[in-house]
């Protein structure tokens, strides 16, 4: 466990700052309208929230993916049934969304690991890597989507 040395002077300063921030009246833009229309996320913010959304999507669809893996490995007939099943447009579209979710989650995850290592943390390169994550995950989705079709 890391421990930081605490000095009384610092402590008093921190307390003063905490009081100053809690006493200030703060506007809260948390209405649905604000979330949808008024808050404008920077690109890194989009990468971050989409990382979260894609993670939830993947977690929730685990049962569906396991079901298909189970059937496809059970027998040649089961394998063919799964092939026919993923031929349905709605199923295919859902799979494509999951492929995107996986690619985005992976690319954004690599970006976060690099940020943890203090690589690319200045504003310009953080923006560049956000663009890279968003576009590479879309390109990978297009690639695997084409394979899927």
């Amino acid at each position, binding site marked *: 466990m890391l421990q930081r040395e605490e000095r009384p002077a610092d402590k008093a300063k921190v307390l003063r700052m905490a009081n100053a921030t809690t006493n200030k009246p703060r506007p809260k833009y948390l209405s649905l309208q604000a979330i949808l229309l008024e808050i404008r996320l920077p690109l890194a913010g989009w990468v971050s929230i989409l990382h979260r959304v894609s993670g939830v999507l993947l977690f929730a669809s685990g049962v569906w993916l396991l079901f298909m893996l189970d059937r496809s490995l059970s027998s*040649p007939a089961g394998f063919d049934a799964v092939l026919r099943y993923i031929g349905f447009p709605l199923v295919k579209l859902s799979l494509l969304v999951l492929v995107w979710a996986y690619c985005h989650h992976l690319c954004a995850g690599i970006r976060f690991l690099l940020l943890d290592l203090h690589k690319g943390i200045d504003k310009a390169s953080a923006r560049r890597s956000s663009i890279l994550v968003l576009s590479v995950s879309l390109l990978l989705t297009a690639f695997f989507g084409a394979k899927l079709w």
Partner: protein
Amino acid sequence: MVNRIVVGAHYGLRDWLAQRITGLVMAVYSVILAVVLLSGQPISHAVWSDLFSQGWMRVATLLFAASLAWHAWVGVRDILMDYVKPTGLRLSLQVLVLMVIAGYLAWTIQILWR
């Protein structure tokens, strides 16, 4: 001493680090699987079930599933801590998530060693 909350995080590096290491394990597995599937023959049932009947693939997939379980637990727990404030509801959802993850893991093992 910090004021500990029973349904909070575990106030340490462990889960944070585990999420990153498991993420790395899954990234490596994903690349290997993609290469194996893209470089081999077109996927038929024979190719597909041969792949999953090999020992290394079963163990690698189990490592992937175990990493996924831990990774997903930390991630979903973080999300629940951010958005679900009532303690009882949060605890219930966390228990539910843990059971779902345990179920996923058990099913994966059953599929792999059938």
